[in-house]
């Protein structure tokens, strides 16, 4: 008889895992990559996994990238699942990005400004020609060095703010929201929205940000400033009463400056869209800033018409771990429900056939 009751799921799963491990390793004649090779030479992949995985740890992120064979959503998932087992013992003070040890700082709204424009290690002006010399390997010549510039490099938003040309900004007092502990609820405060965006999928944010530029909720943005570098993380334990430095992390910050015509109560001034992401992740920080501004439409009295302005739409669909789980769950067995649909369609077809027969 053809039908065999499906048994042995356990063995099938074990075999699949064994095959996966073998496939992950690839040809054993090829040397295995090390975690330090991944974190040093595939740093942008590690940055993305850390950002979307919501866990700043280069070594764990490198492991996740290796374990996921370079599938960065899978890597972020591994980091999230690890992160969730860690106790939460507090929150840091707001990072002071004005004091960032800058490796890169560009402003599109001023030709020059204190501290100047610093390109840093960017792909921006590379010509995208495959570099066959890189395929052969070898060390590049050392980059030119100079004395560090001690000039203070104020944030562009602060320069505009001194003149009152841009809206004020700042964290409200009290504990910041944390959507890894409390479920989303609406209206969602901006701290929670920014957290969701910072963890959100780069591709999703990129598409949403792009859509605002093409007319779906446009906000006339200028890249006020993009900066990347190291910031200190400070924690103020209640039993100490003063802040202690617990280390530094690399972040990319983007402040978009957006047109705003003013309202009945507020004179015309520029408004802000904000992006801050772990690591060197400029594309995402910029997209995040566009989407953050778009989601402020209601607060600023603008019409909410576009997907990027719909806070519920953006927040419920930006998380790629949730999205990938639910999209991919469609491959789980659904045959019980499909059976009920089959019976329902058969019943309806029979009724239609009966009616047709009766009509003849």
């Amino acid at each position, binding site marked *: 008889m053809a*039908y065999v009751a499906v048994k042995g799921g356990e063995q099938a799963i074990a075999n699949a895992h064994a095959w996966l491990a073998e496939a992950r390793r690839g040809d054993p004649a090829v040397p295995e990559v090390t975690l330090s090779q991944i974190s040093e030479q595939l740093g942008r992949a590690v940055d993305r996994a850390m950002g979307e995985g919501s866990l700043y740890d280069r070594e764990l992120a490198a492991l996740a990238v290796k374990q996921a064979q370079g599938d960065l959503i899978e890597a972020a998932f591994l980091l999230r699942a690890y992160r969730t087992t860690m106790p939460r013992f507090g929150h840091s003070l707001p990072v002071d990005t004005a004091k960032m040890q800058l490796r890169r700082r560009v402003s599109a709204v001023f030709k020059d400004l204190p501290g100047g424009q610093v390109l840093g290690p960017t792909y921006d002006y590379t010509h995208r020609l495959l570099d066959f010399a890189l395929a052969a390997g070898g060390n590049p010549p050392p980059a030119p060095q100079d004395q560090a510039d001690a000039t203070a490099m104020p944030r562009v938003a602060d320069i505009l703010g001194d003149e009152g040309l841009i809206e004020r900004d700042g964290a409200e007092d009290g504990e910041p929201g944390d959507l890894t502990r409390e479920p989303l609820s609406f209206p969602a405060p901006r701290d929670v929205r920014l957290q969701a965006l910072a963890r959100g999928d780069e591709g999703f944010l990129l598409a949403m940000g792009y859509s605002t530029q093409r007319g779906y909720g446009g906000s006339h943005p200028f890249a006020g400033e993009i900066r990347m570098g190291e910031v200190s993380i400070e924690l103020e334990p209640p039993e100490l009463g003063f802040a202690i430095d617990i280390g530094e992390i690399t972040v990319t910050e983007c402040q978009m400056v957006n047109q705003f015509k003013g309202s009945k109560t507020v004179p015309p001034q520029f408004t802000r869209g904000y992006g801050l992401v772990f690591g060197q992740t400029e594309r995402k920080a910029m997209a995040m800033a566009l989407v953050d501004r778009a989601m402020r439409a209601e607060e600023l009295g603008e019409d909410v018409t576009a997907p990027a302005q719909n806070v519920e739409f953006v927040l419920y669909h930006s998380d790629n771990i949730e999205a990938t*789980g639910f999209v991919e769950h469609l491959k789980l*067995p659904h045959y019980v429900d499909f059976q009920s649909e089959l019976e*329902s369609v058969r019943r309806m077809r029979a009724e239609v056939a009966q009616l047709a027969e009766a009509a003849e």
Partner: protein
Amino acid sequence: MMQGYNFAYLDEQTKRMIRRAILKAVAVPGLQVPFGSREMPLPYGWGTGGIQVTASVLGRNDVLKVIDQGADDTTNAVSIRQFFARTAGVATTTRTAEASVIQTRHRIPEQALREDQIIVYQVPQPEPLSRLEPSRAETRRMHALADYGLMHVKLYEDIARFGQVAISYDYPVMVNHRYLMAPSPIPAFDNPKMHMMPALQLFGAGREKRIYAVPPYTEVRSLDFDDHPFRAGRAPHACGLCGATDSYLDEVVVDNRGGRLFVCSDTDYCAERRATGHVGADGVQEAAE
């Protein structure tokens, strides 16, 4: 048992948070209670809500059964059972009668459940109104006002267009005359089992971060109209292996010539029947093989 993790994986603080949500859910039958759903080591949409609920109610002496599509041996059921065997070390079973906690996806066992049992449903979409109104802020308001006109209109339109309600699974129910509830994607055939069930029914939706419950002996009515009463469908056959005519059936394609075999979706029910001598039309052949 796995080292370095708490009993049943979740830390005790998290379990307490989930139990508080469960208590609230039991106190207000059918109400969706938001909870701080954790990121589990299994993907969202694969039972993370059910797993968190099970982890929070599981004790060391519990006996766990996990089914998917009614079967204990489907891959995801195997995976979840292994997860608890590794992280909690609890006894597991495939026999409905022996289990104290049953986690399920898409089915309710055929055998009636008892007062000393808990059934935990995995829920992909806890909001019964989601296909009619995508905004959760709006559906929340509709539940608060018991404003379910939209769903009645949908059922009416189905009847007007198809002559019947065209929902065959995840068929909406009214719990305790108050809250409209998604029974999870069980076939409508299973809906009547929820009504006045002696066992506690818990529902966990991990991705959507909601828990809800139906306490024992609570009224659960499938939505219908007086002139179009609710009707639950099953394939009009007897199980090919055990001959049951009262169970929900899977349709198995057995050849390329249109051949079909109908068998119980509840594998334990079918096995128990065969063990007590029931034989279906195709069961004899199986024994002869």
